[in-house]
């Protein structure tokens, strides 16, 4: 049950953004993502009612229920579309979208591409565990070749998606990869992603301890390292880093475009303020002008 909203006194802290206790399996990577997000919200310094956290369906998508902001727990794969509608209806809200790899890269793949192309001003955090956690561990669009799962008992034969490369190509203007256990970097990326005006995307490696086994954290610990000496304004260089495959997985900000305008900035009808606050209906004068064109 969501707890009653407490007025925040003084500077907000991560604690002010806590809600009910998550029902994730103990040890799930998503705990780290939630903690980072609560800190990031607090750091932003706005009221809890100024944020809208939107998700789809999956273990990871349960997150809005665990954070004390306005929340929408929408259909599987549809969070980005719903969030775009909410953002364009009230662009003064800080809209953060959270979800899983199945939700975002699988069933929601079409929305993923087009929300990036449109550069909608959202922060999108994907808790990528390379599996369908909630439906008890089938292969997902990011499951590696050869891996066995309930739906690939003889090993996965399909090539996994490269979300970071895809985001750079599709038009996201802030693209990063993080790891749920690297909390400090993750929090920073989230804060900067919220400040970024445009589509900010963070693919977070967030291991599923239940379907990947206890060794999963050791596996990632050995592979991740930090992206260094990289010019984040250079799109080609970002893509080059992103398509590097092999044993190492780089964490950090790959690409940051600070000049492109976001969809709400481009939209002239927002000059009169958020749509949700504008007066409704049409004036008799506007009506007469419409009629004149029909006579």
């Amino acid at each position, binding site marked *: 049950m969501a707890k009653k909203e407490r007025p925040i006194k003084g500077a907000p802290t991560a604690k002010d953004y806590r809600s009910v206790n998550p029902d994730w399996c103990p040890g799930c990577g998503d705990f780290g993502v939630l903690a980072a997000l609560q800190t990031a919200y607090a750091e932003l310094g706005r009221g809890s009612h100024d944020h*809208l956290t939107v998700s789809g369906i999956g273990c990871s998508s349960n997150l809005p229920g665990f954070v004390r902001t306005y929340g929408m*727990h*929408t259909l599987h794969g549809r969070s980005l579309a719903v969030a775009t509608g909410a953002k364009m209806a009230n662009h003064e809200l800080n809209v953060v979208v959270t979800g899983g790899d199945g939700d975002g890269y699988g069933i929601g793949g079409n929305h993923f591409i087009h929300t990036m192309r449109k550069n909608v001003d959202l922060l999108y955090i994907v808790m990528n565990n390379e599996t369908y956690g909630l439906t008890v561990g089938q292969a997902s669009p990011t499951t590696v070749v050869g891996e066995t799962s309930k739906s690939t008992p003889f090993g996965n034969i399909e090539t996994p998606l490269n979300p970071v490369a895809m985001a750079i190509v599709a038009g996201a203007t802030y693209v990063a990869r993080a790891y749920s256990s690297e909390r400090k970097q993750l929090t920073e990326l989230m804060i900067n992603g919220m400040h970024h005006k445009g589509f900010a995307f963070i693919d977070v490696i967030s291991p599923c301890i239940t379907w990947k086994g206890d060794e999963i954290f050791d596996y990632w610990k050995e592979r991740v390292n930090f992206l260094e000496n990289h010019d984040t304004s250079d799109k080609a260089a970002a893509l080059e880093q992103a398509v590097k495959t092999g044993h190492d997985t780089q964490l950090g900000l790959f690409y940051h475009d600070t000049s492109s305008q976001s969809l709400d900035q481009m939209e002239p009808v927002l000059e009169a303020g958020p749509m949700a606050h504008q007066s409704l209906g049409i004036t008799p004068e506007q009506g007469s002008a419409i009629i004149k064109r029909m006579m």
Partner: protein
Amino acid sequence: MAKYDFVVAVGGAPGQGIETLGKSLGQICARYGLYVYTYSAYQSLIRGGHTFLTIRISSEPVANHGDEIDLIIALDKNSIEKHLPNVRPGGAFIYNSDDVKQAPERDDIQLCPIPYKKFSSGIEDRKLQRTCLNTCLLSVALNLVGADLNLLKDIIIGALLKRKGQEVVDANFSVADAGFDHAAENFTKFDTAFEKQEPALAFVDGNSAMAMGGAAAGVKFYAAYPMSPSTGVLHWMAANARNLNIMVRQCEDEISVINMVIGAAHAGCRAMCATSGGGFALMSEAIGSAAMMEIPIVVINVQRGGPSTGLPTKTEQGDLWQLLGASQGDFPKIIVAPTSIMDGFDTIPELFNLVDKYQCPGMVLSDLTLSMGFATFDPDTINWQPEIDRGEMITELGPMEEEYLRYQITDSGISPRAIPGVPGHVHVVATDDHDEDGGLISDEYTNPHKRRDIMEKRQRKMEGIVKHLPPPTFEGPEDADVTLIGWGSTHGVISEAVQMLNDDGIVTNHIHFKWLYPIDEDVVNEVLANSGRSIIVECNYTGQFARFLRGETGFNADGHIRKYDGEPFMPHHIADGARELLIGKTELYVPYQEIVV
């Protein structure tokens, strides 16, 4: 003045400017104060197909395209061959004589060959020469019906001077004069001519009317993915977005469309979208999610022939069960089928007030006939400022005595709805079932008592909704031999069939349904009790409405008239059917479509 009732039809290839011709003629009629109804039979081809536009003109309001054609304008050779037989005896047939080596033959009509090449020889630009053909042949028609050519010239100036320049206007004027004068010298005018009457009218299509209704209702967010025959709503919204301050988004698919609409509605906008059957199918899951999250939205489904991508440019009333069954589970919803083009305008604000009050999805069931047809209306009768009632919506922080519960259990089932951004009301809405405060009940190992409470709360809203919905309309004498029962767009054509039957001595009345769901069984049965031999008229194969009505009320009709060939009913289709059913020839009458495009 005796009633004026005249039908003009235009045949040609897409790209020949038939729509422009139709619009110009419609506008001319509207300026005369004459009522117009148009129906365009067309094909899903941008070039190379065939279009046949029927324009019925009357001194009295008219709501269908009639039975007979008085005058045909053939813009190409194909139309000459195809449509020569479609003119009524005594009518006229205008064609470009350059199209044929041998003149078409029919001695019971007036043939009006126009030597267009000769008339347009002064136009040097070949392309311009071709595009002026419709102006020339329309001018011939205007002469035959005794209309003022200057009105056409006015419209040409308005449409072309700024966009295309003086040269194009001059070219159109030259062939217009040539055609008009040629007709004056060589052809005989129709007996009755256009006569001005008050007031001057405006001319609008059904999709635009619904879009205008949305604007008047306060729609601030409109999203769409193009799909015939619903795209006109998008085009109107896009064209008017800037001057009316409406956010218009074209999305990657219909799933995105409806989910964006849900997001915008949750954030506080009145939000709407329109599509056709296939797009609506993609929206289904989200319809249920709007009901579950209790977010008010309006979705328009403009039906075309199904199943599947079906008949993109043809009409049908085949999606009723899709709307009734859209999305899994039980939830409150409203389904309404506008009964005329301007009823489409009024329906949208009416529906928005209901969905805002009851926080549920509202669905509008239009069809190609209604949406792509044009009709005239008296501009003074339009209500640009309908009542806007947003229901129990919390948009700012007021005094709060107790904890805010988004899904508070109430007697009415309505729980006040706080909009994101309002302090003190932070909550989560979810598509999984939830408790009063939004907490998921599925994650509490599905608490059966909470589930029952929240299900009953939501469904209680239906008891409120049904009280607001007007009963079906009843027109005609109480004691009738025959009762025609229809729903949605067929109101106008059934009315005229009723008139024909009564003129024929068969006492007939008409019951018509606009608000389809929910239905108040007692109220509806009371209206149905007035029926004589009952005949349900609908545009589909299986009698979707007949089955629905039987299921809701136990009412079993005596006979059925159904059409599913893609073309809309003409009045005589229904009148003939009623006669056959009356003599007991059959229980199901399927009219034969005479005009084939």
